Every structure is written in structure tokens, then in C-alpha cells.
């Protein structure tokens, strides 16, 4: 179990860095079309910000901001977004994950609909990767014995 300790420098630096790390993670996810990056990398950077918070403060500080319930929901939400976009393509009459058909419901031509489909899928991957990384870290760091939800 990672415990809280007195370290003013570490806590201050962490507090200053976390917003920028999260912003950079979102940038990496959103900018995957133009530069190296995408859902996996961006999700890992977002998870790194939460892990830094857990290291500098303690696990409960992370769970205040990203509760275990939300974390578990995010885990499955990403896969649902990904598979849901595929099923949406199926409903609109194309093959599974054939984003071109999304131009029927999006204000874009088929090529740009594909681009938007890729973005949607990357966001789903980002959600899952972030939530799973945080969840695995919390479970391994505390041996699965971090405190339950305060209901």
C-alpha cells in the first residue's frame, strides 16, 4: 500500500505537472491522424498522470478523482465505443468496422467519415487503456486491498 508522506517538493511538482501531462495525453490521442500517436500511447500517458498522483500523494487521492466504479465503467466503455462504431456501420448497411458508410449520419464525405471513424475508435482505445493501466497499478501496488468505495 502506498502511503501518504510529507514531501512538499514532490507534491508541488506533481500538482503542477499533472494537468499538463493529461493535456498532452489528450493531444496525443486527438493528433494521431497527423503524427505518431493514437489511443494506446495517449491512454498510457493519461494513466501515467494518475500513477504519478498515486506515487506523490497516495492511492485514496487518486480514488477521490477517479473512483473505482468510474474506472471499471471506463474499462468497458472503451471497448463498447469501439465495438459500437463497428455495429453502427453494420446497421447502416456496410461491413463491420467499415467507417466509410458513416457519411450517411455525419456531415462529411466518405473519406472524411473514415477519418472521423478512426478518431472515434482511437478515443475508445484511449478510454480502455487508461482505465486498465490505472486499475492494474492500483491493484498491484496495494495487493488488491485498497479501501472500498465510501458509499
Amino acid at each position, binding site marked *: 500500500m502506498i502511503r501518504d508522506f510529507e514531501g512538499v517538493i514532490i507534491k508541488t511538482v506533481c500538482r503542477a505537472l499533472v494537468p499538463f501531462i493529461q493535456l498532452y495525453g489528450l493531444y496525443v490521442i486527438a493528433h494521431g491522424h497527423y503524427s505518431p500517436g493514437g*489511443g494506446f500511447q495517449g491512454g498510457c500517458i493519461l494513466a501515467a498522470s494518475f500513477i504519478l498522483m498515486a506515487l506523490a500523494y497516495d492511492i485514496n487521492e487518486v480514488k477521490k478523482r477517479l473512483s473505482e466504479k468510474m474506472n471499471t465503467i471506463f474499462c468497458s466503455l472503451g*471497448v463498447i465505443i469501439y465495438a459500437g462504431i463497428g455495429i453502427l456501420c453494420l446497421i447502416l448497411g456496410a461491413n463491420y*468496422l467499415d467507417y466509410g458508410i458513416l457519411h450517411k449520419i455525419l456531415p462529411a464525405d466518405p473519406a472524411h467519415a473514415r477519418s472521423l471513424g478512426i478518431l472515434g475508435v482511437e478515443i475508445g*482505445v484511449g478510454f480502455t487503456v487508461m482505465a486498465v493501466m490505472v486499475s492494474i497499478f492500483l491493484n498491484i501496488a496495494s495487493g*488488491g486491498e485498497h479501501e472500498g468505495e465510501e458509499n
Partner: protein
Amino acid sequence: MKFLTFITILMTTAMLAYATLDMPGFADPSSPASTHVSPVYIQEAYEKTATPNIVTAVLADYRSYDTLGETVVIFTAGVACMMLLRREK
């Protein structure tokens, strides 16, 4: 028994090593992958997907089944970790 295992491993290794002789050379421009698959991606990826980064286009569009599988693998790893380790105090 150990001798038999050794012979089996040796023969399998020899078979695999022999099979690699049929593989195209590294970055061979006349291999099937370089003459049929890669040029199509390089020429058509931008027109068809409006995505300048071909890697992203291949990862999330041409091979999106693969990426869906990868995401499900990560999800499964997370759920398995939760199920193995998580317990109330």
C-alpha cells in the same frame, strides 16, 4: 526420453531453419508484400481515409479488427487482474 526430446527439438529447428530459406529477403522490393500490399496503402490511404499518417490509417481502418482484438486483450488483462487481486479489507 531426454534424448528423444532433444532429437525432436533438433529436427523441428532444422525444419524451421530450412523453411526460412523460402522467405523473401529483408526489405526485398520484389517480394509480394512490397509489390501488392504496401504500394496500395501508400498510394490510396490518404485519398480513401483523409488521414495523413498512414500508420494510423492501417492500424485503425485497414486492420481495425486487429486493433479491436488488441483492445479486448487489454480489457481482459485488466478484468483478470481485478478478479485475481481485488478483495475487500
